[in-house]
């Protein structure tokens, strides 16, 4: 751990000690990362911005007044870097997001379709009394009472059939 203050480190960098900057990088990187993360939400992007901010900071360090608070410079450069980074990436991000969303939607549709087919196949394997109850309750959205009425069964029997049917389906679907 380097005991030098920020002011001493900035002066050292200005005097040609390149590796004094390394101490400053280590000292501020966590704070900067969480600061930038609040602006961009993506951790990897935040890391890239932090790196870029440090490079920008180093490029201008000769013009920094070492007596003034170093953290003010660091955070304002990080904020400006994040803003320009976001501005630059804006178009790419929106295009990427559209493509990603479309891919996700397509994948979800495929998964849903496949799941539906698997469930239907499993339902078809059930005994007719269970199959009827399942279809009415889940596919046709009919209540216990209405199923009981239409099948002329007691409500509790409908519940039992449903319970047993679900158990069999669970086994069939693995």
């Amino acid at each position: 751990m380097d005991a030098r203050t920020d002011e001493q480190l900035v002066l050292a960098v200005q005097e040609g000690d390149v590796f004094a900057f390394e101490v400053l990088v280590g000292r501020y990187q966590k704070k900067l990362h969480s600061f930038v993360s609040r602006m961009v939400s993506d951790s990897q992007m935040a890391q890239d911005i932090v790196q870029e901010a440090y490079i920008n900071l180093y490029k201008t360090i000769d013009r920094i007044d070492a007596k003034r608070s170093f953290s003010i410079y660091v955070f304002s450069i990080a904020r400006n870097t994040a803003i320009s980074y976001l501005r630059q990436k804006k178009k790419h991000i929106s295009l990427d997001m559209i493509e990603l969303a479309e891919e996700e939607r397509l994948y979800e549709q495929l998964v849903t379709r496949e799941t539906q087919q698997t469930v239907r196949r499993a339902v078809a394997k059930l005994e007719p009394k269970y199959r009827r109850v399942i279809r009415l309750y889940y596919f046709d959205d009919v209540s216990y009472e209405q199923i009981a009425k239409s099948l002329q069964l007691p409500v509790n029997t409908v519940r039992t059939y449903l319970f047993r049917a679900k158990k069999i389906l669970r086994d069939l679907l693995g």
Partner: protein
Amino acid sequence: MKKRRQTDVTVAVMQRIAKYEQERSGWWLRAFHTIVVLLGLVAGVFAVRLALQVRERQTLDMIALFQEDAEIIREFWADTMEIVFVEFPFETMWMLIALLFVLVFVLWSTRRKRSIANRRLSELAKRNKK
């Protein structure tokens, strides 16, 4: 909630800074040396030209008067000095002085920046050796 991944950026940042600094300080020192060498060369050309013109016109031979007796010096020194002033290639001499002044100014005004650039490069070279 997704956990945020954060890795140490120090190494990556310092690698980029080392590269940037090598390019910047290296370029600056090369530019400085080029300017100094060019100024020195041009000053050299003017110095040679001045010397040739003085030798050709034999202007400085007139100053040999001051090796004569005091009486002769007293009688001819004013005319001799006038001839020297008329014949001496002052344009070339002022150009030479101006160039030397610029050269000294460049060396003086960049002394701090030069030592910083040299220190940065030597530090980077030391780190590279390790």
